[in-house]
């Protein structure tokens, strides 16, 4: 019996990937775990290893092709091992269904997902993988709310935090999102339709979702980083000697991690369906990285528990992996708070959009020397413009100001960044 290998579930709501390279040829004998294909998802370029050893009978895909989770990639000839298909594209449940239909219905469990067509369309719009969801409707039917609730969540969360003490939780009202049809632009001149790349589409969907769902509010301030900058400059060569490129961003990470511990409501996600705030007792910080393919946000785990030097080291390797398209999916998920530093590109400030379903994002522009009055004297100081954008459903202006202050306080007294952890 030939065995087929289908695109496995990539997690994180990813439903498709683009084949970048096929690393084997038909007729090749491959070992288990040998690299088969290189695929690029919305998030990363990953190598897919062979699930079993044997002779490659047929390769069903080619570079450049977009494949869905569950779609058969490679068929192996019988290796005599009697194994069953790892995950074959199942026959669809249709009258007189034929082979052609099987390909058109990449469902994982051999059965269609229990959801109405309108719900399935919503899932496609929001990039939610229905096969990974557990429906809350009768008979496990997936509802629109289930889909909206799953946006951006890595997996159906099992454990919920204990309910708020003030009374039973209630779902919040939903935000309807149905863009009106576009006018026919051709009436005013020539246009060209360019399909969005995977990454662009994902960014577009996430940003639209976040901007539409979250009432954003932004707090501006400036941190005096004259001392911090002096410290970075002083330690730069020493760190370099240990193979570490010391950057301002690693100090920002540390300052944010410490401030988040003081203000845990910013290290959280709002469960609108449950009417609960999910406070995370871990601190994984996302850091926006511009790549030539678009914006990617890798995540540094347990930033609160790591010294600045370690953060600097991790940040450098992670950013490099992302730029090379080699980031693993685990590098890209599970963030609790995001920092975006546009300083390298200049600007005096920006209002970023919250990385849904997080609660807040810290934007940092370029530090500039400014004339500051200190004790009646005008002195040159290096000021770093920061903006803290947060979810007004979760926190109020005063909370935001205090949290921003908690970050600034640490940036202005850099020694705390080495002591506090």
């Amino acid at each position: 019996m030939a065995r087929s290998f289908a695109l496995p579930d990539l997690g994180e709501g990813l439903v498709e990937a683009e084949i970048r390279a096929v690393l084997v040829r038909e007729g090749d004998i491959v070992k288990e775990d040998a690299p088969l294909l290189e695929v690029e998802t919305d998030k990363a370029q990953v190598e897919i290893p062979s699930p079993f050893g044997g002779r490659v009978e047929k390769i069903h895909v080619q570079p450049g092709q977009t494949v869905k989770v569950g779609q058969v990639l490679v068929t192996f000839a019988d290796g005599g091992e009697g194994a069953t298909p790892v995950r074959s594209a199942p026959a669809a449940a249709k009258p007189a269904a034929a082979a052609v239909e099987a390909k058109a219905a990449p469902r994982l469990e051999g059965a269609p997902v229990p959801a109405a067509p309108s719900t399935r369309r919503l899932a496609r719009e929001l990039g939610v993988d229905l096969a990974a969801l557990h429906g809350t409707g009768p008979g496990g039917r997936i509802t629109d709310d289930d889909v909206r609730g799953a946006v951006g969540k890595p997996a159906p969360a099992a454990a919920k935090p204990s309910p708020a003490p003030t009374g039973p939780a209630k779902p919040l009202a939903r935000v309807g999102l149905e863009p009106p049809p576009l006018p026919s632009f051709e009436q005013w001149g020539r246009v060209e339709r360019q399909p969005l790349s995977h990454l662009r589409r994902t960014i577009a969907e996430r940003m639209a979702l976040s901007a539409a769902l979250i009432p954003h509010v932004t707090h501006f301030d400036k941190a005096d980083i004259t001392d911090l900058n002096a410290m970075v400059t002083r330690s730069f060569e020493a760190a370099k000697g240990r193979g570490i490129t010391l950057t301002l961003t690693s100090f920002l990470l540390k300052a944010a991690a410490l401030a988040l511990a003081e203000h845990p409501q910013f290290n959280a996600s709002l469960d609108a369906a449950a009417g609960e705030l999910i406070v995370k007792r871990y601190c994984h910080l996302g850091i926006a990285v511009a790549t030539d393919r678009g914006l990617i946000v890798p995540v540094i785990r347990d930033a609160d528990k790591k010294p600045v030097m370690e953060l600097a080291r991790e940040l450098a390797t992670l950013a490099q992996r992302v730029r090379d398209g080699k980031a693993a999916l685990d590098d890209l998920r599970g963030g609790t708070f995001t920092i975006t530093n546009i300083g390298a590109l200049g600007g005096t400030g920006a209002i970023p959009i919250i990385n849904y379903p997080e609660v807040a994002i810290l934007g940092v522009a370029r530090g500039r020397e400014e004339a500051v009055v200190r004790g009646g004297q005008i002195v040159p100081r290096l000021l770093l413009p920061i903006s803290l954008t947060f979810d007004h459903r979760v926190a109020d202006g005063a909370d935001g100001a205090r949290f921003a202050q908690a970050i600034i306080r640490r940036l202005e007294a850099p020694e705390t960044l080495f002591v506090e952890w």
Partner: protein
Amino acid sequence: MVMGDLVNEVDVAVLGGGPGGYSAAFRCAELGLETVVVDAGKRLGGACLYEGCIPSKALLHVAAVIGEAERAKEFGLDFGEPRITLDPLRKWKAERVVGKLSRGLASVAKSKKVEVIGGRGAFEDSRSIRVGGEEPQVIRFKNAIIATGSLPSRVPGLDLVSDRIMDSTAALEVPEIPERLLVIGGGYIGLELGQVYAALGSRVTVVEMTDGLLPGADRELVQPLLRRCEKMFAAIHLKTKVTGLKEVGGAIEAAVEGQESQAFDRVLIAVGRRAVSDGLGLQTTKVKIGERGLIAVDERCRTADPHIYAVGDVTGDPMLAHRAMRQGKVAAEAIAGRPSAFDNVAIPAVVFTDPEVAWVGLMETEARGAGRQIKVAKFPWAASGRAASIGRSDGLTKLVVDAATGRVLGVGIVGPGAGELIAEASLAVETAVTAEDLALTIHAHPTLSEGLMEAAESLLHQGGAS
């Protein structure tokens, strides 16, 4: 491209004016895309309207009226023997049925500004189609949709050319009422047309290669149809092949496996349909053609060529107009950049015989074969007041649900009106409702639709619940 060619630049070129093609074209137009349809007959409707679904249903209606009149004798109502005049029958079918619908489609096309170009189109490359015939031109397109459909299959070895040997297209013209008609193929086309001719007065013999009528359909659903066919037809030979056809003195002599040769006045070959994908110049594009000439598409109806989509019969089974129409809309929306996909769970199948047989979703044998845990409920129409009142207690409603969740996976119905009754079942399967939902929904009494509710209710009691 040759100098002097008339070049027509469009957003979308649709090849084929059948249900898949016109649905795609209309949706494209609604989405603001400049769209043309290339159709050999310069008309919209395709095989469905001119040589399939619609004319066959018109003829089956005639057969049903004859059947009802015959049955009415039981109620003491005798209309006498029917007198059938073919000319008015053909005229009614061609003008009042097909013609009316054809004009309707043409006016929709006009109102949506979809141009229908007459001629056969063939790709010259991934961005252009050359159209021959009376309106020769080259169409430069941004995207194309192949909707060239299917044609009746031929049987290898039975290639005698004769007016007396008909495919479904020829049979629907009703050239005459043959005294003896041989139908090769006991699938839905053979049975529908076999019943039409039997009702009109032909002695019909059906030969089917497999061991049952309507291969692939649930055996319990086929039972009542088989009983009716046994009454209507002169003979039904299962597990039998016709091995040769000869024209002998104004008749066709058929060599039937395991029997003596028999003479027939006409023969209908109805062994399925094949995709039309050759002669389309597809070798000049990246479109991939698979087995049986089928064009492989993904769930957005994209072929392997990024600018070319395909919908309908040319993309494979089930070759049904309603599947093509949905695919057509998906392709149009995909071209317009909408997140549409052909992710449909339920494609209802309807056989418009007497009694009608219809099913949707997963049927019992299929489900058990796939190792699914299911519960099956049946409601025989002998218990239906409505069925009794129309003298048709021979129907059956069969419900397949998931054992764990009670979700409706499939429904099969046999009986008059099954084709209409299946609509509720399609909604149930497509939207993943549970048997409980069906049982708790009020169904009008007395109607045949109660069968689904009754079947669902019996499941609830089975489980000891509610």
